[in-house]
């Protein structure tokens, strides 16, 4: 087995069993904090010497207990997050941080808080008018509230020095992951869709300092690997989460390589770094959030930038089409679909929309659509 394969296998192991990873940290005497979507400033958790554990639902999970809180027409990510809290899957976490950034997450925050009182609950409301001074101040106030709660949980203060260090660690991690996304696009013969997903997803279950060491090693090997012409199809993916082993396998089997993404769980989360030259680290984190953009979850003060951004991503990455993984019952993604569709059509970029959810067991329709899309793009080559 080559070192690249070993590393890929190591990342793969992490995402197969996040529980194992959590237990490893707990056995080291560390506390872990569950971070639900979206834009949780994990840097503060890291600075508190705790492990931020990203929880974005449970692909392949089954909703039972959460039905006591949600009707059927809610996003499965939120429902499965609650399900895991109710069923004991999240036991061991010393607290959770939750944002009400969409209309499912609003009631989710309340339902989780009352249904799972065993987890100290840290509420985090981001401002949508995030760029003006009052928006930055509001973010700082919310992040300070998160910091205060984490200090209570951790039983010790979080210093500015440790926050600055955390910002550095996270900026390095984001840079490493962004670099990986580019390298994976250059080497689809070495990193398939499943492996690409595992590397990005494993960062949610690993201390970023550790993750970056492994990933930098992989990146260095990928840098050195000879470029081989990719005979398959190049695509950009878009959506909230794409970590379904079945869907990723279908993508790979149809000779599709993900050369860039607009996925909330992947590149949307690592686009922006926090400024390291800012004296006040909490302000640095607020400025980082202020600079976030091109996301269905965020207000766009310029009204319609996202389609152009994705069109540019397609062009820059040399992709032939876009695969939109539409999470069922996801209002923000659904509301932004017509504009994205228009933008892609005007730019002459083919796309396919696949309806998905995390309880999905029948992939027949997705397989057929992706096969047809792949065939169509192959003929256009």
């Amino acid at each position, binding site marked *: 087995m080559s070192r690249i394969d070993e590393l890929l296998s190591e990342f793969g192991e992490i995402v197969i069993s996040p529980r194992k990873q959590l237990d490893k940290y707990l056995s080291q005497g560390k506390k872990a904090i569950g971070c639900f979507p979206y834009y949780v400033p994990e840097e503060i958790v890291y600075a508190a010497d705790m492990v931020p554990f990203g929880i974005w639902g449970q692909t392949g999970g089954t909703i039972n207990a959460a039905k006591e809180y949600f009707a059927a027409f809610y996003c499965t990510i939120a429902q499965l997050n609650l399900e895991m809290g109710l069923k004991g899957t999240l036991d061991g976490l010393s607290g959770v941080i939750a944002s009400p950034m969409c209309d499912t997450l609003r009631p989710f925050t309340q339902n989780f808080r009352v249904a799972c009182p065993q987890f100290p609950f840290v509420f985090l409301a981001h401002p949508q008018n995030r760029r003006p001074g009052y928006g930055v101040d509001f973010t700082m106030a919310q992040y300070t509230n998160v910091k205060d709660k984490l200090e209570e949980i951790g039983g010790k203060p979080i210093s500015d020095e440790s926050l600055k260090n955390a910002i550095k660690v996270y900026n390095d991690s984001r840079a490493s992951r962004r670099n990986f996304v580019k390298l994976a696009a250059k080497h689809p013969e070495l990193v398939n869709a499943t492996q690409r997903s595992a590397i990005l997803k494993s960062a949610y279950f690993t201390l970023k300092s550790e993750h970056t060491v492994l990933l930098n090693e992989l990146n260095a090997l990928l840098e050195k690997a000879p470029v081989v012409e990719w005979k398959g199809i190049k695509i950009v993916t878009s959506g909230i989460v794409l970590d379904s082993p079945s869907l990723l396998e279908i993508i790979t089997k149809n000779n599709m390589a993900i050369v860039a993404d607009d996925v909330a769980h992947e590149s949307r989360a690592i686009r922006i770094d926090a400024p390291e030259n800012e004296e006040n680290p909490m302000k640095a984190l607020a400025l980082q959030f202020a600079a976030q953009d091109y996301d269905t979850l965020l207000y*766009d003060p310029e009204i319609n930038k996202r389609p152009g951004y994705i069109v540019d991503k397609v062009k820059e990455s040399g992709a032939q089409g876009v695969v939109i993984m539409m999470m069922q019952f996801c209002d923000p993604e659904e509301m932004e679909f017509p504009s994205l569709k228009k933008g892609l059509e005007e730019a002459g970029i083919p796309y396919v929309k696949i309806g998905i959810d995390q309880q999905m067991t029948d992939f027949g329709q997705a397989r057929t659509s992706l096969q047809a899309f792949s065939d169509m793009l192959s003929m256009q080559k």
Partner: protein
Amino acid sequence: MLENEKVPAKLKLRAVADQVYKNAWDAKKRGELVGWSSSKFPAEIAETLGLAVCYPENQAAAISAKHGGQRMCEHAEAMGYDNDICGYARINLAYAAGHEAEEKPMPQPDFVLCCNNICNCMTKWYENIARIRNIPLIMIDVPYNNTVEVDDHHVAYIRGQFDDAIKQLEKISGRTWDEKKFEQVCANSNRTAKAWLKVCSYCQYKPSPFSGFDLFNHMAVVVTARCKVEAAEAFEALAQELEQNLKDGKSTWKYAETHRIMFEGIPCWPQLQALFKPLKEKGINTTAVVYAPAFGFVYNNMDEMMKAYCKAPNSVCLETGVEWREGICRENKVDGILVHYNRSCKPWSGYMPEMQRRFRKDLDVPVVGFDGDQADPRNFSEAQYNTRVEGLFEVMEEYTARKGGDHNE
């Protein structure tokens, strides 16, 4: 009608609501700018600047009630909007894109005023209108609040946006902010809110001097015209009529009042008749709706005004939501609760299972839910609704018998 004959309050209210749209059409004809606004955007701003504003939520409800909802929703779906999206948003986006709605026409907007206190969907809905029409959007973001109190950080953040919204609108419209006028507009708004709360308070009497379903119709005026003195006057006139009804033992509820319920949620506008039918047949009057506290914006200064706009049905924490509802259930002496699981409204329906449990425990009343939609008739089953109302009625009867014939007092 004779000149000196007293105009019934409901006609006054209707005239006030109609005037909002007439003003907008007249402004458009004069070449002035017309805005569209979300229902809980601080209406005081546009009113102070004398700008005509229409309300997409109100329009969508009216189109739905006149059975145009499905047609408009289907237009939106053909544009690419998923049928999972809020029915009001779909109807309005279809209208913004040029699909006519004879049921309730309103002029196309020159600017949009968005406040997302009621839901996050509003943000993207209004961005979409701004894209379709290529017009400016003024955004006041009110973050969801997890605590009963609104803290100073929320106040400062919303105040910053409020002041920016004024500047943006001054620039767009070429009009100048007049502090004196603003004070008068705020006074009108408070007067309307107090009159609205007074009207709602008449539900406390047994039997009630009116049918609580009337509030759903009158609500349009609180949404669209709360800053106008005519709105305050019309609600005050209605309160006087209800006072008189009380003295005369009359009611707009023309049936027996066997039971009194809270109707939870936005009504299914396309099926108002179907909603009402089994209730009237069984003598179940609706004496509590959450819109009473939700639109009772009363404030004494700017900070309180900012806090008032943080108090929307879907922007408050679970505890406040429960307190509002249980307060009106107790005041208005309800025997049961009918919960609308509204397919269009995720934030609202997402609290309901937990709220149902709390209502049962805290109020000792039966609670029953049904599936429906505020605008899209495809999400409602009359048979299911009738069965649920039947079930609620039977349990209310049992509870009443158990309590020795006494309803909740």
